[in-house]
């Protein structure tokens, strides 16, 4: 907790803090304007969450003043001492700031309306956008309506703090359940195909929750959360407070549970969602591979997609009847060769960069990633790699007498998940081995690792090769899935997204990478693949960026961090906890007696 944050949430007694009010209101207004101006509001308005009253665009739009209100009313406990108590001044502030924010948004609408010429430069500034922004009532009424709505929503945000902790949690859970049910409509529908009454009750035929069912869902979830709160869930509660054996048991339970889910879930899902799951699986594979290079060994590799490309191209060349390779193997026969090629690629890229560190390593690997892509794309090598055409007619994976490719996605998804399981197992086993410890030491301090007898050149190459082999799993699967391999699939953005998956998920942690891939690629979508929220399409990278910035500020260790990395980023808190555990006796300088 820095002094600045404490300051930000500490009002000067009950007096209105005008500067803070202006800042909060102004920022909120700008954020609301931004959402409207870049077209998100209008685009997302087409997706109805609760028919006919709430669209995703408005949810996003109104979430901004809500968060503002919530922040205004928030009290932070610092070292057990609560800051100034909440007062009516907070409500006044939220309302006034809301009015200000709404006024800014309305002003923007008026400007766009008054200067139709702006549209030439900003194609999003259309009358349709103004209409959505002013709730369909036109600019004049908008001047009254927008500030009013923002003020009310801001007041609701503040009001959350007047609820008891328990009630507030229940309300939040209920709201979350409704939003999730609405946003993931397609999943719920797909999942409950065998019990169609439930989706038929929940959703309007035209899409979106029915108002009645939204209310029912809210009440049910709220009541359930209210009464179940505080009860311990076996195996999950207080994972951190458990000792080693208990933790091992709970993680075993979790692993079995996950395994069971991976077997059952694809059966319940339809083609579209299995396709999505396959994409998520491919990114999990690559994330796990990159996690070894970056998370374990601490080598920032920005050209990781190169190994994915090598895996995919090798598989395509060896199995396609149209390739330059004179013989033709099936997928299983070619697989070992793919792994060997990927390992060689790991050595090839690893060797020249082995003496580099940090930023330099990142830049050079970035370059190598692009070089590999250009080699595949080049006219010079097109007799071998097919140039821009790529390699076509890559057959699927032979299973019995069938060839399983992208069109049999419900079977293919199991292949993917199988290899994800292998990659996860390998990562898990390596983590607590002699090699894993050497990597961890190298990540902490390369010079000292070398000085205590670790051959860092060898350890680095080993990390590169292991990571490359895991990426080639993904490449081999990808080739069989899409049937055509061409250089466009291996652009630099893929490397970046894999890295973001690892960072947002939790560097150094297997479950973290899995969660990262599910959240980012599954929900938002991969570089070329749509996610669950298909509406995000063109805003995907914006959201990725915003999410990354948010995570770096608020939770730099990721959603599910490894214990080691969490410690690293929160040393001070860890020391404080250790101090409190010992009843205030400083463990750092224990009594030397």
């Amino acid at each position: 907790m820095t002094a600045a944050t404490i300051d930000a949430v500490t009002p000067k007694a009950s007096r209105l803090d005008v500067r803070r009010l202006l800042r909060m209101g102004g920022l909120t207004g700008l954020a609301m304007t931004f959402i409207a101006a870049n077209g998100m509001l209008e685009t997302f308005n087409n997706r109805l969450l609760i028919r006919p009253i709430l669209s995703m665009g408005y949810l996003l739009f109104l979430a901004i003043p809500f968060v503002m209100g919530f922040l205004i009313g928030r009290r932070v406990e610092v070292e057990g001492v609560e800051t100034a108590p909440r007062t009516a001044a907070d409500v006044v502030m939220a309302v006034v700031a809301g009015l200000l924010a709404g006024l800014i948004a309305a002003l923007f609408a008026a400007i766009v309306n008054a200067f139709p010429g702006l549209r030439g430069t900003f194609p999003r500034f259309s009358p349709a956008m103004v209409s959505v922004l002013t709730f369909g009532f036109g600019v004049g009424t908008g001047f009254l309506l927008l500030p009013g709505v923002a003020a009310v929503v801001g007041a609701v945000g503040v009001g959350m703090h007047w609820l008891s902790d328990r009630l507030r949690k229940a309300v939040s859970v209920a709201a979350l359940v409704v939003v999730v049910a609405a946003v993931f409509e397609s999943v719920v529908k797909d999942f409950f195909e065998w019990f169609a009454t439930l989706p038929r009750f929940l959703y309007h035929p035209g899409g979106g929750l029915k108002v009645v069912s939204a209310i029912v869902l809210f009440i049910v979830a709220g009541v359930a959360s209210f009464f179940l709160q505080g009860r311990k869930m076996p195996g999950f509660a207080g994972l951190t407070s458990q000792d080693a054996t208990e933790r091992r048991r709970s993680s075993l339970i979790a692993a079995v549970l996950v395994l069971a889910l991976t077997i059952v879930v694809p059966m319940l899902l339809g083609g579209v969602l299995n396709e999505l799951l396959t994409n998520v699986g491919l990114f999990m594979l690559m994330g796990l591979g990159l996690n070894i290079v970056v998370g374990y060994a601490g080598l920032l590799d920005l050209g990781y997609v190169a190994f994915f490309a090598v895996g995919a191209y090798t598989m395509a060349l060896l199995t396609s009847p149209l390739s330059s390779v004179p013989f033709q193997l099936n997928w299983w026969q070619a697989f070992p060769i793919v792994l060997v090629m990927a390992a060689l690629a790991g050595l090839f890229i690893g060797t020249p960069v082995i003496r580099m560190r940090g930023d330099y390593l990142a830049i050079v690997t970035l370059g190598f990633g692009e070089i590999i892509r250009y080699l595949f794309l080049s006219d010079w090598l097109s007799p071998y790699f097919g140039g821009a055409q790529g390699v076509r007619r890559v057959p699927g994976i032979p299973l019995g007498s069938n060839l399983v490719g992208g069109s049999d996605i419900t079977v293919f998804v199991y292949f993917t998940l199988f290899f994800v399981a292998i990659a996860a197992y390998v990562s898990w086993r390596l983590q607590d081995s002699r090699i894993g410890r050497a990597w961890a030491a190298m990540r902490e301090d390369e010079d000292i690792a070398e000085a205590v007898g670790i051959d860092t050149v060898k350890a680095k190459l080993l990390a590169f090769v292991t990571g490359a082999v895991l990426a080639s799993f993904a490449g081999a699967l990808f080739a069989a899935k899409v049937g055509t391999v061409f250089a466009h699939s291996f652009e630099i953005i893929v490397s970046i997204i894999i890295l973001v998956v690892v960072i947002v998920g939790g560097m150094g942690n297997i479950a973290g990478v899995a969660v990262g891939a599910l959240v980012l690629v599954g929900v938002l979508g991969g570089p070329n693949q749509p996610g669950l929220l298909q509406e995000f399409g063109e805003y995907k990278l914006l959201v990725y960026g915003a999410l990354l910035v948010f995570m770096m500020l608020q939770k730099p260790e990721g959603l599910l961090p490894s214990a080691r990395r969490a410690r690293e980023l929160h040393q001070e808190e860890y020391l404080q906890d250790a101090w409190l555990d010992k009843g205030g006796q400083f463990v750092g300088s224990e009594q030397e007696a």
Partner: protein
Amino acid sequence: MPLLEIKNLKKAFGGVKAIGGVDLAVEKGEIVSIIGPNGAGKTSLFNVISGIFPPDEGEIIFNGVNIAGHSPSEITKAGIARTFQNVRLFPNLTVLENVKVGQHCRTHRGIWGAIFQTRAFKEEERLIEERAKDILSFFGTRLVGYRFDQPAFVLSYANRRRLEIARAMATEPVLLLLDEPTAGMNPRESAELTELIGKLRSDKGFTVVMIEHDMRVVGEVSDRVVVLDHGVKIAEGSYHEVSTNEDVIEAYLGRPAEDRTTTTEEQKA
């Protein structure tokens, strides 16, 4: 034949001659202290011996092999381990992991053993753990029990120094280079460590070369003291010989106040 023999060792950083032709021989089983004023080239000497910097000139013969210019990991493997003046642990690894990492160069199982959990791998992991705990118990109760799983950064300064020595011991060295092992310790802690350094030789059989500023520690455990100044050796001998040597007093030890006044009076006269 001495265990470590350094002949005409030179190392310069740009124009600064850190080491300007040092000869030094260390017999097996000795405890040798290196003293000298700041900037005398003591730590540079350690850095060159342990391979962090290659020497410009000269030979470092260890166990009959010239190791000059080898990489630090090769030199550690050959049997020279060291600690650092400003303690350098792996702060986010646990105490036990720090010592386990030290055993890296003495163990062999690779990726396949870990993936397939072979019997040899499991056996080696068990031995590594056992040995790590054994080494840590050398320091009494300070680094055992609940300490095993604590990250190194929570340790007190003295314990960090101890852990660093433990990590060096884990590499199974013949020669141990300790860079100011008692720096920053209170008198009781440094007395205790002095005793421990003696035990490193008597119980564990290490040969020890240490850089030390605390003359009490130096006097108590050293068989021999080497004095460096401006990158050259200005004296060598027993503690008594060195501490009465005029050059050493001039360069490093200094005189008691009354002596100094007499000298100035003599000069005046």
